[in-house]
């Protein structure tokens, strides 16, 4: 079904169906909920302002993910100097919203931190593939469309990302114990 980005009902539907996805894609790049929300808003505003017609909901979704991803990557590049601050936020993810049982959440927070650091250390082309797969639940075909690469390329990148993550996390485990 055709989607017109300036149609109120279409906009509402795309917003409802994709907000979670978009804020998550951005969050895994900027690691700061306030910034992630700002950029999410920006992505949806661009969606409206561009005044585009998409052949289907999926095309609108891929467009939004692409815009969100680029907004977030640009933000990180522009604010390299603030990275340390972001780092602090990432290393302190046990905010009241995430915290449950204190001890358990501390262990979980450590684990999350290690994994995020490992994912973050991947080269950008591998990182985006693995993040879209694991956190956005996209299949190879969708990832290929979002990133403008072939499905075979997605398959190769997923495999390489897994290999690198395994190495990074195993090194980390060795360091800890």
């Amino acid at each position: 079904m055709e989607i017109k980005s300036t149609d109120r009902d279409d906009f509402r539907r795309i917003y409802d169906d994709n907000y979670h996805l978009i804020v998550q894609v951005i969050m895994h790049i900027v690691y700061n909920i306030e910034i992630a929300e700002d950029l999410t808003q920006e992505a949806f505003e661009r969606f409206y302002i561009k005044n585009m017609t998409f052949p289907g909901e999926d095309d609108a979704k891929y467009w939004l993910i692409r815009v969100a991803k680029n907004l977030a990557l640009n933000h990180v590049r522009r604010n390299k100097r603030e990275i340390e601050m972001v780092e602090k936020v990432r290393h302190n993810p046990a905010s009241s919203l995430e915290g449950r049982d204190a001890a358990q959440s501390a262990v979980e927070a450590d684990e999350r931190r290690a994994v995020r650091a490992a994912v973050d250390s991947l080269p950008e082309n591998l990182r985006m593939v693995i993040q879209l797969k694991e956190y956005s639940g996209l299949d190879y075909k969708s990832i290929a469309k979002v990133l403008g690469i072939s499905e075979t390329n997605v398959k190769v990148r997923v495999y390489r990302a897994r290999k690198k993550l395994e190495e990074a996390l195993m090194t980390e485990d060795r360091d800890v114990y």
Partner: protein
Amino acid sequence: MCIDSQMLSAYLDGELPEPYRTQVEEHLEHCAACRKHLCDMKALDERVKAATFSDELLLRNKDRMFSLLDKKYFESGKKVSFIRRRLEVSVPSLVTAAAAVVFIFIGGFMFFGTSSEQTEDILPSFALQADSSNVHYVSDNVGLENYTLEEILQYLDSKGYNVDISIKGLQPLETAPAQN
């Protein structure tokens, strides 16, 4: 021969087409090493997946943001082009506008003359310095040579100066000698 890791990775994601999928499944049944490899891969995947953010955190402003966007773009029936035009003001035009404001402000003092009382009303702290006696024309394209002597004299006369002009070195015009 064991399964290529890349193939196993695609199999784990459910992205391996037939007939490879069946081949992989058959191989896994009798190969403990590959089963372990797949198991490790799955465990890694779960670790990565677990490092996500809670829905509570991610969705905390979903409704608020929607009503904000809805109000901004749909409720008042604004047109796209109108919003864009209104938001986009180029830097040079901003600078020009700022310069114009400064120019008009200063020009107000320069061209209409000032008195302490007037200035006092507008800018109390500036009143002392901005008196007519302290503000001078600095433009150099309006010089004394633009006025005729008569105008200058009239002006000075109107100000109550007593002007005395004497002319030196004046020679009578040479008239053609009478040819007699």
